[in-house]
């Protein structure tokens, strides 16, 4: 589970963090109860201001994805009905595709690029 911030992107760093963590939670990689790094740790590692990470965490909390327990830190919230989980058939297809891409020796970036290309060609039809 790696977070990456592109300092040249037009998307603000806190939003990049929010999007990536949201994706990890929605995909089930970060499961309910999983502890998040402390704000200071993440800010130090990414070379960001503490306020930037704190804002990302606040946004995630307001989305109901994480909960903060004071000194005990931030944890991934239990799944609620309000969330829109990835539909099971779609998850199954994604896993099949990931497995085949791995067998073909493709990395995540290549697999995503192939998926984008497939989506684009579907749209042209």
């Amino acid at each position, binding site marked *: *589970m*790696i*977070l*990456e*911030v*592109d*300092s040249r992107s037009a998307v603000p760093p806190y939003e990049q963090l929010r999007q990536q*963590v949201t994706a*990890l939670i929605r*995909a*089930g*990689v*970060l*499961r309910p109860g*999983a*502890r*998040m*790094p*402390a704000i*200071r*740790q*993440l800010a*130090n*590692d*990414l*070379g*960001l201001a503490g306020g930037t990470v704190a804002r990302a965490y606040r946004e995630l909390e307001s989305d109901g994805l994480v909960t903060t327990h004071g000194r005990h*830190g931030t944890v991934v919230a239990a799944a609620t009905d309000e969330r829109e989980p990835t539909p099971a058939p779609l998850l199954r297809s994604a*896993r099949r595709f*990931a*497995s085949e891409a791995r067998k073909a020796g493709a990395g995540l970036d290549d697999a995503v690029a192939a998926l984008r290309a497939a989506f684009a060609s579907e749209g042209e039809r």
Partner: protein
Amino acid sequence: MILMMLRLVFPAIVVAFVLNRAYTDVDGRFVEEWARAHGLVLSPRNRSMVHWYLRTARILRAWGVLAGLLLPALIDAAFGWRALQQSQPFLAFAGYLVGALYAEVALVRPADGERRVAALVPREIDDYLPRRLVVAQQAVAAAAVVGAAILLLVGFDQGLGGSPPSRASVVLVALVAAVLGLTLERIERWVVQRPQPFTDAELVAADDAIRSQSVHSVAGSGLAMLLLLLGGVLFGFAVTDVPVLRWTMWLPGLVCFLGSIQVCLYYGHRAWRVRRSLPKAAPA
């Protein structure tokens, strides 16, 4: 004359021994043993980082110890101020702590190129340091403060021959113990939270092992300083006019003094395998 010579020769031998040991090159075998003890698999990428840290930390800690040992004598020679003479062991441990911290700060952790990356895994102090050590620091600090307070309340028996500690020195000991008790854990947390600007597994593992060594050096020397303070307080009871304190406190005081060296050596160089709990990935 002979005594004068001994006073010069003995420190010179100690300095020569410590510096010789500090500057003896950290060879490949030592690095491999250290890595094995920490459960670290060495690779070309992380070996140079580990080698640099082990060599630098050894040199800086040695200079810190020497500075602590020699500072009182230098101050005495320059200003004729002898108040620090009895603090040599305490200052040596303090120098060790500063040296260990400086080595940690001086370590350049290579960033992942232009990418800003971080692993989404918490780093907690308990992953790097046994909880009992943090608790021991606070307990010994509290005991030293309470002991100093009692020492201020009881009277001294002038007929025993020993010189009772001055009120100012007892208050100073209590203050230093309180400050150490309050700040050591913060320093340790600060080391744990220092940047880890890469996600490569080999570098993260090496960094964790190095970080653990730094935290242990700080904790070991910090606890040693606190034990010296507590030992000093307990020995202060040897000249009080309360017989039960006079007869019972010298032994734990002695244990504290001897224990200070033991904890600094044991925890300062102990291999501790970092036990970070990684969140489980979703089943495939």
